[in-house]
């Protein structure tokens, strides 16, 4: 599967990562959540530990629980391309350096 991010970068989600990882342990996430978070993130951060990994966040709106929740898509940007490593729900935004913030 391929997506395009907010600056037009192609980002690949392999069948293995989608079926054996994301769908297997993060059942609350669907393809549309990934697409929307990559194309229109609220914030993008560099990972705390790795310069080659960027974390795309978008807020989940109108939750019945009233809790703060964000979609977070982790994208590794390596020599062979840009690949989704994981996708999850987070309670907070965290990263080492802010790259982008939606105004």
């Amino acid at each position: 599967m391929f997506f395009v991010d907010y600056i037009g970068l192609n980002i690949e989600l392999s069948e293995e990562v989608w079926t054996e990882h994301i769908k297997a342990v993060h059942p609350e996430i669907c393809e549309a959540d990934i697409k929307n978070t990559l194309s229109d993130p609220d914030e993008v951060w560099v990972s705390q530990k790795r310069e080659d990994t960027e974390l795309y966040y978008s807020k989940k709106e109108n939750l019945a629980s009233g809790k703060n929740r964000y979609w977070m898509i982790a994208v590794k940007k390596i020599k062979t391309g840009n690949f989704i490593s994981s996708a999850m729900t987070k309670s907070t935004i965290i990263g080492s350096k802010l790259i982008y913030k939606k105004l």
Partner: protein
Amino acid sequence: MNIYYDKDIDYAEIFFKKVNNYGEDIADGIVAFKDEENDEIVGYAFEEASSSVFSFKDIPTRAKVAFLLKMTREIHGFTQEQVTKKLDGVSGRQYQRAEAGDNVSLDVIDNIRIALPQADFSKVFEPQTVKKVS
């Protein structure tokens, strides 16, 4: 147990249960995933996983063994089938159980250690001090 390892960025997730969940940062580079219904911890994520998983106290030894096997296979590009062909006296099913985080005997672990010498089991089983009985 579901174990995911991304060798390109040394990142792992270890899950014990499949439920709708959210991640909460609990330490530098470690996330705990909690059940949205009751906040029970159902998994963890680890950056710098090749070291941080083994020093983390809150997952059982069998999960660390399973992660070690998965990580070693991924790093060296081995399939499960390639590893199980080298086993002597241990069935492929027993190996799969070890890599799935099920309980297996020390005899099985010992056999896997010989078949997969690239796996550094000292990361899981720290040397113990043996007291001499007089």
